[in-house]
């Protein structure tokens, strides 16, 4: 019997100034992380509107992670502080609705932290894979 290994689809919103460069560094250093992590570059982690996250789930993401500069290092001074508050509230709300809390995460990854980026993605992908497909925030029409 053939076993189809389930690979989760992960959307990673990465800030242009730190995390996207961090992802680049991970690539340059040939650090492996799952190919199913789709990176979307945003000017700042604070650009991520809650709607983006829900849309990612709608279109088939199994997990969504937001990566930004470390608090205090935001290119725009304070963007990631707002992200921190917003996402704390939003993720708590998603959890309140019964959506698995392991499917969402915020991580601070600087441009120098290629290794952290790869490790974060590996860990996140593993946790999401353990949960299986996203069933609770799915739009069935998109699965056809």
């Amino acid at each position: 019997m053939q076993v189809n290994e389930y690979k989760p689809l992960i959307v990673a919103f990465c800030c242009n100034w730190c995390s996207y460069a961090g992802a680049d560094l991970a690539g340059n250093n040939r650090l492996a992380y799952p190919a199913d992590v789709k990176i979307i570059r945003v000017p700042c982690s604070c650009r991520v509107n809650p709607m983006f996250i829900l849309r990612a789930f709608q279109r088939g993401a199994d997990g969504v992670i937001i990566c930004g500069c470390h608090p205090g290092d935001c290119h725009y001074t304070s963007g990631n502080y707002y992200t921190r508050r917003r996402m704390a509230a939003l993720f708590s709300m998603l959890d309140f609705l019964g959506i698995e809390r392991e499917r969402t995460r915020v991580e601070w990854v600087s441009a120098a932290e290629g290794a952290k980026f790869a490790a974060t993605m590996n860990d996140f992908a593993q946790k999401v894979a353990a949960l299986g497909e996203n069933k609770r925030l799915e739009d069935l029409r998109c699965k056809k």
Partner: protein
Amino acid sequence: MQKITREQLIEKASELLANGTVSCVLGWGAGEFGYDVTPTVFKTAEEMKTGFVFSDFCGANFSKYLVAKTQKTEGKILVFLKPCDTYSFNQLLTEHRFDREKVYAVGIPCEGMADISKIKAICGEGISSITAEGDTFIVTTLYDDEPIAIEASAVLAERCVNCKSKKHVAYDELMGEDGDVLDSGRFDEVARLEAMTPDERFAFWQNELSRCIRCNACRDACPACTCEKCVFDNPKSGVENKSPANSFEEKLFHIIRAFHVAGRCTDCGECSRVCPQNIPLHLLNRKFIKDINEFYGDYQAGAEVGSRAPLVNYTTADLEPGEVFNREG
């Protein structure tokens, strides 16, 4: 039962209309059955004598109407505000949604409003009359020979059962005595849900939200939803949809709506009051309020004019999103 009477309010309004302080009165208009009250603008004392009511069914929060009415009206508008309405009033002022100079706010005490559906659950359809006597409603119906007596406390609207405050936070004039901020159990239901397993919570919300017909009443009645153009009305937003096609769209709308008012919601409970499908929408808002209180310190939207809403604020030592869950153990 309300301590203040219709006659006292008419007298106050007549006086303010007569001395030119205000040019009109935003009040509750009588309906067909004694419990169906419509927000109405009264221009004269005579109009009020025939059409104005104040009863245990005057739940509508007038604050939001001020946004439109103050733009259209010459002179000041007299508005009667219950304690919970004053929080919305302040929040709208904080957001510069209307001109304070155009409003004359009279704070009135509130003993909690009744929920007609709770009354009907007890005595059925076919209500002929409802009269308040002390702490009891005397209800006559088409089908019962004897009037039915109902304890007012048994049919109190959900939001009034967990009233957060009897204190008026804004007024030009106060009628009756001011109350205090109450130590309500308004987060108990949220806590009960939090204690459930994720599967149970999911099942709970799936069942509740699946009834949504997307009539937008929750949004349109909400004093915090005063955007000129809502994202859900914008065809270019990609989420403009009239009816939820499936459970995803039901969740999308309610999560985003609750998020858009998070930190600004005063917990007035209008969303749940107006929902034709009786979805407990206020629980979503209360979850945000409870979280914000726990994460960033107690904050009551509308308690004072000019306060900065928590989600448009930060400190460098804020909790990390990941810690939100670890905290709970």
